[in-house]
């Protein structure tokens, strides 16, 4: 092999993976924008904050847009995964680790040390937060907070990387519409509307910060005392919002999930999903597809559901009264209500869906009985606001710390380049777990497999951000009905043989396990598929 060795020594013999000149300039432009932020963090005092902020945001946004145009605009319509596994940043290389460390560091500072970003409780903000003051004042009239900085950057990430995703999938209308949807909900519902709502606040009228699409239990703090008080004291608008918050999880969500699967939320509306689908898209293939990961996923995510239910129940319980003549909803009535609801769900599932859940029934029962014991404990020992030896407030704080900050932020987003873009949604999000539970048992949504056409190539599984082994189903001719599927549609897009289709159809025959695939001897198919 003298011939090749000679050449290898000349060039290193690596596949092409470097950026084009144009992309390099785009990266420099984007980094310049970030550089302005770094200068702000070091407390460099910008003379004209509005102008420098505008310059920084423009540089970042146009850097991403330029990069995307350079990557995709000259290419034919189709799947654009060439070289994904050759790139350091997309294959857990040095750049991936650097990015992971930077993101993780950013989240730690954001959640726990906002003073480093320039947040001041008294006097004017300085540093990065101070740089964002002018924009915050335009929108809400108030000075910025670290959350405003984060919200702005988050929105820009979804909009600019959404544009990139849009170009990458320009041949696919499902992907394009879905991306417009997450861009819209982020910009309007998560970013602008809450800021404008803050403008309505006065001394006599005050609404809590409310991203309307952020539903309990993802929005785990929605029913905390200060918010509920605030809703109730804000008259009919506030009461309306409170009712909307409750209806979101108990009425609106079940109806939409029945009709369309949980994708209506997770990959069309949700902000976490929005970031994962846009800025996180280059990391989607890094999710772990092993069966072990699936086992861990089910334990962890459902434990979070139990945790958030306990925490919320304890918190609401702690501020309710005992006297029904003062307010109709008392501590005991509330506990009875929660207990009845849980029992109803558990009984209905066991009655009608036991077969589909054969293996998981035990785990469901464990979760259910844990919750009931907690309710009883609250009733007997919780009159002083304690649950066993924990104060409800402590419980809330530890949930907020462990799940709200560490899991969804630091791990969920900071580790995009290492574990993929849906770590939070898959292992941590209680909302996704509840919607998934319904999707698995009571929804018209499925990914249909096209008869016997699968060639087991593995593109679908590789690019599933939720770590679903899609191929395991497709190669058996079986529809994919999985609680974790967020309906992003990428498995269907990357399939080279047109095997997968996301659709809403009748509940009958939705789960259709086949031993023998379509295309073979009809007698054999009948014998094996019906004879078992």
């Amino acid at each position, binding site marked *: *092999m*003298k*011939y*090749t060795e000679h*050449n*290898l020594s*000349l*060039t290193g*013999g*690596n*596949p*092409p993976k470097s950026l084009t000149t144009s992309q390099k300039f785009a990266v420099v432009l984007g980094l310049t924008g970030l550089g302005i932020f770094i200068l702000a963090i070091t407390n460099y005092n910008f003379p004209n904050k509005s102008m420098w902020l505008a310059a920084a945001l423009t540089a970042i946004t146009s850097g991403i847009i330029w990069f995307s145009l350079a990557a995709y605009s000259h290419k*034919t*319509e*189709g*799947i654009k*995964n*060439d*070289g*994904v*596994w*050759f790139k350091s940043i997309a294959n857990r290389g040095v750049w991936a680790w650097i990015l992971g460390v930077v993101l993780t560091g950013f989240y730690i500072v954001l959640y726990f040390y906002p003073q480093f970003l320039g947040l001041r409780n008294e006097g004017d903000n300085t540093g990065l937060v101070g740089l964002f003051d002018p924009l915050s004042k335009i929108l809400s009239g108030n000075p910025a907070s670290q959350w405003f900085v984060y919200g702005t950057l988050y929105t820009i990430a979804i909009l600019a990387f959404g544009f990139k995703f849009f170009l990458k999938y320009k*041949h*696919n*209308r*499902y992907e394009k*519409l879905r991306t417009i949807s997450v861009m819209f909900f982020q910009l309007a519902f998560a970013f602008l509307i809450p800021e404008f709502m803050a403008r309505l606040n006065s001394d006599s009228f005050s609404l809590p910060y409310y991203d309307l699409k952020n539903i309990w239990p993802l929005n785990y703090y929605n029913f905390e005392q200060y918010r509920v008080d605030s809703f109730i004291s804000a008259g009919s608008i506030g009461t309306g919002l409170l009712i909307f918050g409750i209806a979101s999880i108990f009425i609106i969500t079940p109806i939409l999930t029945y009709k369309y699967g949980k994708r209506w939320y997770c990959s069309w509306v949700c902000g976490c999903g929005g970031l994962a689908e846009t800025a996180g898209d280059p990391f989607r293939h890094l999710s772990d597809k*092993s*069966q072990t990961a699936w086992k861990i996923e089910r334990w962890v995510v459902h434990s979070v559901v139990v945790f958030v239910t306990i925490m919320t129940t304890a918190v609401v319980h702690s501020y309710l009264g005992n006297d029904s003549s003062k307010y109709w909803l008392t501590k005991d009535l509330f506990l009875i209500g929660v207990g009845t609801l849980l029992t109803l769900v558990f009984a209905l599932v066991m009655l009608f869906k036991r077969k589909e859940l054969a293996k998981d029934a035990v785990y469901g029962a464990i979760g259910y009985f844990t919750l009931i014991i907690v309710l009883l404990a609250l009733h007997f020992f919780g009159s002083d606001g304690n649950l066993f030896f924990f104060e409800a407030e402590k419980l809330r704080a530890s949930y907020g710390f462990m799940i709200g900050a560490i899991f969804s932020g630091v791990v969920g987003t900071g580790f995009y380049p290492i574990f993929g873009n849906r770590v939070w949604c898959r292992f941590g999000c209680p909302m996704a777990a509840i919607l998934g539970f319904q999707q698995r048992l009571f929804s018209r949504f499925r990914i*249909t497999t*096209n*008869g*016997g*056409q699968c*060639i*087991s*190539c*593995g*593109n679908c599984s590789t690019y599933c951000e939720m770590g679903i082994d899609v191929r*395991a189903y497709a*190669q058996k001719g079986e529809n994919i009905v999985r609680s974790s599927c967020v309906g992003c549609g990428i498995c269907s897009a*990357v399939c*080279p*043989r*047109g095997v997968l*289709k*996301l*659709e809403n159809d009748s509940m009958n025959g939705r789960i259709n396990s086949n*031993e*023998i*695939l*379509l*295309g*073979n*001897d*009809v*007698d*054999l*198919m009948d014998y*094996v598929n019906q004879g078992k």
Partner: protein
Amino acid sequence: MEHIVILGNGISGITAARHIRKLSDKKITVVSAETEYFFSRTALMYVYMGHMKFEHTQPYENWFWKKNKINLKQGKVIQIQGAQNMLIFDNGETLSFDKLIVATGSKPNKFGWPGQDGKGVLGLYHKQDLETLEKVAPNNTVCKRAVIVGGGLIGIELAEMLRSRDIPVTFLVREKNFWDSVLPAGESEVINRHIRNHHIDLRLNTNLDKILLDDQGAAKGVVIKETQEVIECSVVGLTAGVSPNIQFLKDSDIETNRGVLVDDHLRTNIPSIYAIGDCAEQRTAIGNRNPVEAVWYTGRMMGEVVAQTLCGKPMKYKPGHWFNSAKFLDIEYQTYGWVFAKPKEHEKHFHWRHSDDTKCITINYNKDSLQFIGINTFGIRLRHEVFDRWLTQKKDVYYVIENLREANFDPEFYAHYEAEIKTAFKASHTVHTLHTN
């Protein structure tokens, strides 16, 4: 306990092993010289293109085999002694069996071109071919141009692979249009144009004369037969079809022709030995099917069938309606039923092409009875289940055209073309409409 040995761990052999395991407790050993674990051969291209890593092409996790008591043995069999039920390996080892399934797949064709065994000259079939390609064509500095010989499915895949690394490709196709022995002309022409849009130097009606080697035996160019033009290149892809990988059987007592000859139960002339997949040749062709079918799906189906036979439920290999699929660069192709390059007697083609030149369909039907015979579709996904049913129910072409929407399998929100197709069909079939009314 009966010992079933399966020679080859491709889709045919592995499907057989899985189904035998489901049906029985027999001892199963799968022998492969190529890789330790089963992988999807059709996915090799995506490894070179960087869409996947090799491990992603393996449909089952590595623990699967032990858990299901399917023994995997790596080794190269050089001889089968049918009378003694014995396999002999190249290192002298032996392995005895009660039943043997030969599932050794294919190998790339070579037609005796001068230079065809030179360095940098390769087919694209085995994992080892991929490893060779990675060495000789890692990028366009090492490989300044590649020439591909043979205009079929593997040829166009190899072209797509090389283009993914910006390596200039010249694609020599013997026929008048790409794959026109299988595709009707209208479709072939769409693919011709699509290939050229991807900056591939497609040369139609062009044959390879010889491959030029340098003094170290490495490819340095090819000579075109018709013009004696020399094209400089360091890599030559030979993709002029495949043939059964059975040369190690030539001296055995197993009857072979192009492939291992099997009866309708996939049995060879030796009662304890079966053959399935690409390497098998039916003694009597089934319907319009080729006696040697080198297709993923047929390999899988033969594996499903032979497992039944070996587990006490003898079954004939009786495949249902023909179907197949491929992808030509960005254009997906599916076919259900039969559409031949040229309509046979009593057949007629209806061809529709979208103005963007990336979508078209061809429907083949009987021009007398109007019975629907088959459909080719490019750039529009169609439902296997629906066409399988329509073929069984012998629907006529009008029914198919009227109900095409039911068979659509494109992702949600995609544009629909059924109305346009219907209008085009009516415009070209007014006589028939009057006739059937």
